[in-house]
Structure formats: structure tokens, C-alpha cells
């Protein structure tokens, strides 16, 4: 019996790999790519597509730095894309000569994270800010003040993320401190703000945010725009705050790691998901905005039903901090939670 199982297991390992013409290995944000698109691509080009997910840019960077990751496509955020290009971890696949490039919305082309746009094609963008449960909180949400200096219904009932990245960025926006500040005095102000806020924070966690928010366990949570939109579409009484100080922005791009085995298939895939009809499917799945020109009529999340995706306030993209600035961020965070 054991032998039988072992044989089946071995057969399953090798069986799937030889079935298709070629293969394509994706390493992207967990559950970011629409399964429908993967299936469609796989059928159309007879390619076996394997998808692995990560939950932080650092995970991806670590894997690429280690070399020979075995992946053909990854999707870093802008600040990590910059590091990866500078460190020579990515293939120059002449992205600006592709059809995909022509379909990128003007304002997302040739930005500081890839000026020549030779290394990447963007796939999704969004922002991070705070959201409220409208059953639990009915007050104003137009300023980060209500989140960082909570009063009344929000006191003791707000939740932060467990990592400093976006949260510190939002605090910097609120205080008017530039991202990646290397000035200890400025960062001390960030720490003081977060320390004062801590008394009102119920939990620092990046897991199960939807559960906490939908059930009303907390009244406000630091969160991402698309997740709020998706929870709201599923019927949860949640709303994304448009804070006048601005929102912390991000944009993820498809890239090809250096030495990828299936470069041609990777380019094919990038072209494929960047077509207007497929970009629309992708946006409807992921619930984050698409930097591509999409088919407006087929969009599931519009300005009316998903205002969170159409910010009316400035969105400031996070930056890659110098080691000195990063140490200040880490120091703020460890002193906050010491």
C-alpha cells in the first residue's frame, strides 16, 4: 500500500511537468493574478503555468538575491523594483517595445522606478490608509488625525498593521515629515505620535484584517484600498477614508528575474495580461486599480460603487529608504513595541 502511494506521489510530481509544451513559473503577490487569466493563457499557448505567492517585497528580494530562483516572472512594488534594477537582478526585456507598453496609462509610464521602462510593465496600483466600520463609527474620516489621535468611538478600537512600512509612511504624511527621513529629530516626532496612539490601539496585526473589520471587533483598521473595496462588495459595512494629508501609494510591476528559463513565455504572458480585455478581468479579480487602459464598460468596480479606488486626495508613492533612514524606521518600530 505504501509503495502504491509513493509511486502515485512520484508520478504526480513528474506527470504535470511534462504534459505541456513549455512552462512558466510565476512568483507574485499571493492570490493577485486572476485564476481565469492563468487558465486562459495556459490553454491558448499550451503552457504549464505554476504560481507561487509571497506576502512581502522582502521575501521576493531575498529570493532573487539568493540567485537562480527558478522563476520567470515576479511582481515587485515600485520601491523594490528600483532596488532590483540597480542591483542587476532583472532582465532587460525591452518592455518599452512591447504592445503592453503602448497600453500603459500615460501617467504610469517611465516613472522613477523604471525611467526607461525597459525592465517592467505595471499590473496594479493602489494605496494604503485607514478604513472604518460604519456601524461602529459615524464621525468624520477626512483626516489622518482621527486615526492617529483617536477620540470617542475610536479610542481603544483601532488596529494597525504589524509591520512599519506603510504605517510609518502614513504617520509621516500626517506630520509633514518626508518619507525616508534621515533626521532623527523628525523620526522622534513620528515615534511620539505612534506612542501616544498606542493607548488607543487594540491590536497590531496584518493577518485576518477582514475578519476583525467585518465583525466590528475594531472600529478602524489600517488597510489597503482594494481589500476594503472587496470587503464592501461582499457586504461588510466598511469604508475607505480619503484623508486630506494624502495616502501611501504603491504600484506593482511584472518583471523577469535575471537568468529566467522561460523568458519567451514570460514576455508572452506579460503581453497577454496587458491587453485591455485581460487587464479588465485582472482588475475585476484583484479589486485594485489597473495602470492599463481597460474596457470601462466591463469594469466591476466603478467610481460609484468603489470610491476607494478613485482617490480624491494626493497619493504619495513609498520610496526605497537608505540604510540610515531604514534604521530610523526600524528603531521607531522596536521602541514602539519594546
Amino acid at each position, binding site marked *: 500500500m505504501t509503495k502504491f502511494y509513493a509511486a502515485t506521489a512520484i508520478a504526480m510530481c513528474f506527470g504535470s511537468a511534462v504534459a505541456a509544451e513549455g512552462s512558466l513559473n510565476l512568483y507574485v503577490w499571493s492570490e493577485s493574478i486572476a485564476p481565469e487569466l492563468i487558465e486562459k493563457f495556459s490553454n491558448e499557448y499550451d503552457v504549464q503555468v505554476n504560481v507561487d505567492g509571497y506576502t512581502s517585497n*522582502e521575501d521576493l528580494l531575498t529570493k532573487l538575491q539568493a540567485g537562480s530562483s527558478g522563476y520567470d516572472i515576479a511582481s515587485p512594488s515600485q520601491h523594490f523594483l528600483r532596488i532590483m534594477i540597480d542591483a542587476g537582478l532583472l532582465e532587460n526585456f525591452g518592455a518599452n517595445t512591447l504592445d503592453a507598453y503602448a497600453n500603459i496609462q500615460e501617467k504610469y509610464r517611465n516613472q522613477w522606478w523604471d525611467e526607461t521602462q525597459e525592465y517592467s510593465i505595471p499590473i496594479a496600483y493602489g494605496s494604503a490608509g485607514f478604513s472604518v466600520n460604519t456601524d461602529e463609527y459615524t464621525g468624520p474620516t477626512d483626516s489622518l488625525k482621527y486615526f492617529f489621535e483617536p477620540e470617542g468611538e475610536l479610542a481603544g478600537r483601532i488596529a494597525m498593521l504589524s*509591520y512599519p512600512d506603510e504605517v510609518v509612511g502614513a504617520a509621516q504624511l500626517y506630520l509633514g515629515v518626508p518619507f525616508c527621513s534621515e533626521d532623527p529629530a523628525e523620526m522622534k516626532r513620528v515615534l511620539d505620535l505612534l506612542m501616544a496612539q498606542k493607548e488607543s490601539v487594540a491590536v497590531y496585526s496584518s493577518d485576518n484584517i477582514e475578519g476583525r473589520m467585518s465583525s466590528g471587533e475594531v472600529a478602524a483598521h489600517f488597510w489597503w484600498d482594494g481589500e476594503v473595496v472587496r470587503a464592501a462588495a461582499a457586504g461588510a459595512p466598511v469604508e475607505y477614508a480619503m484623508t486630506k494629508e494624502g495616502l501611501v501609494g504603491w504600484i506593482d510591476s511584472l518583471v523577469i528575474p535575471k537568468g529566467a528559463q522561460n523568458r519567451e513565455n514570460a514576455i508572452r504572458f506579460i503581453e497577454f495580461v496587458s491587453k485591455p480585455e485581460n487587464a479588465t478581468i485582472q482588475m475585476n479579480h484583484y479589486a485594485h486599480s489597473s495602470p492599463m487602459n481597460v474596457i470601462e464598460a466591463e469594469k466591476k468596480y466603478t467610481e460609484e460603487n468603489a470610491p476607494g479606488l478613485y482617490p480624491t486626495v494626493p497619493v504619495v508613492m513609498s520610496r526605497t529608504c537608505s540604510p540610515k533612514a531604514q534604521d530610523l524606521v526600524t528603531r521607531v518600530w522596536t521602541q514602539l513595541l519594546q
Partner: protein
Amino acid sequence: MSEATAHHADTPRRRRQINLPYVGLAPAWLLMIFALIIPILIIIAVSFAVRGAYGGFDWGFDLSGYRQILFNEGWTGEMEFTPQYLIIILRTILLATVTTVLCLILAVPVAYWIAGQPGHRKSVLVFLVTLPFWMSMILRVYAWMIILGKDGPLLRFFEFFGAPSGMTFMYNDGATLAAMVYTYIPLMVLPVFASIEKLDGTLIEAAHDLYGNRWTTLRRVILPLTAPGIASGGILVFVPAFGAVLEPTLMGGGKQMMMGSLIQLQFGGGRNWPFGAAIAMILMMLVMLVLVGLALRSARNEVES
């Protein structure tokens, strides 16, 4: 068969006894070298390496990873003594110790009771103790989040009897401990059960015959004889509890860092691998100290007896 046995009997036995164990243990040694010793050497090397600007490290010799545990640049830009990491280390030791003690207090009666059951029921009960291991740890922690959370059965129960609304069991040290004890208690029950089962019942009878009351019997007879099981259960609980990340973050609300999450932060967003490796080394050394201490004690006890 009988020929072979006869042949073996003729060859000098001493020689075989020296060679065979080494050959036979080779797979275990290889596993130890590749899965344990080499990784630890790498962590040691990284803890002395020079940090890379964007995560990672460059080979070299730099003590700043260890120095940072005690001294850092303050907000005014001067080097100063920073107690925050010591506080985190001490808190982690405290959490692991309290978890171990609670597990012990709860596990000894359970193990004693199971050991006293008739044969068939005994094996069913031991099986039930191991049952939670069949599920992923994160699922078990989530289950506790449901039990203790808002709309959870426990809160419902208390609200039924007039508990004030707004009461919560989640996101405090109690919630962390509940999940920790639940997660690790099987590791305590099993070794304690094994040593209680071996306990000679006549010794307890003898203790009673000599007018030892129940408390004296427990203290002077049962506990000393089950000490090895308790010690190994204690190690099995203490060591993983020391590195716990899930329970403090998910149940405790992550308001206070533990060593596990500190290491995670340094290897992740903090982008300071050598420092993360240095903290990991400290964690490992503390565990080693406990283990060596226990080993020395039991060696001494053996010599004495």
C-alpha cells in the same frame, strides 16, 4: 541461518562493535551535519557579517550586530545604552517560563489520570492528546481566536450571565498564554505520562503504608521518580515557546514584541540580517544554557544515586 550465527560467534566481537555503530549511524550524522550544524555555522557567520544596504549581507567580520543589542545611536545622535532589546529578551524568557510552568501544572494530573486507566482506554486517551498535532498550528490559533473573540462562545456565555458589553478576551497576555499552553501541552503530557506509567504502584502503596499522606506521597515519591519525564517535557515546551511568533502576534495583539518577531523584523523590513542573526544566536545560546544546565544536573543526580 544457524551457520551464519555460528560464523559470527567465531569472529572477534570487539572489532565489530567498534565499527558497526559508526557505519550504521552515518545517515543520522549526515542529516545532523547538513540540517543542523551547517545551518548554524551559516547563522554564526552571518551574525559577524557586514549588512547589505538592501537586505542580505557581505562576508566580513563586524561586531556591530552584537553591539546593537546593547548600544545604539540615540535620538540625539549619540551612542547610548538601549535597553529595548534586553526588555524583549527578558519578556520572551518570562513568557516561555510561565508557559512551561502552566503546562506542567495542567499536564501532571492529566498524565497521572491517563496512566491509571485500563489498557484500551489508555491508548485511546494518548491518541486524543496527540490529535491536535494533526492540524496546522495556525489553524489551531485561529480556532482560539474564534473561541475568545467577539461573538465567540465564551463571550456569549458570559454575556448571558450579565457580563457588560464591550468586554473582550482577545489581545492581552491571558489570550497569548491560553493559546501557548494549548499548543504546547501535548509535548508535556506525553513524556510525563511515559514516566508515570513506569512508576511502580507498590511504591505509592508503600508510601501510604508508612503513613505518608497524599501530598507527601506526591512530593517525596511520585515527583522525584517522574522527574526525568517532567524535565524532558519542560525542555520540549520551553524551547519552542521561546521562539513563538504566532501566538503573541495573533492572540496578544502584537503590542509587545517577542524575540521571534524581532528576528523576523530584522530579516524582513528592517533589512539588517547580521543583527537578526546575532539575536538568533543569543536565543540559541540561552536555550543551550538551559539544556546544558539540565544535563549537568541530571548527570550529577545519577552520580549521587
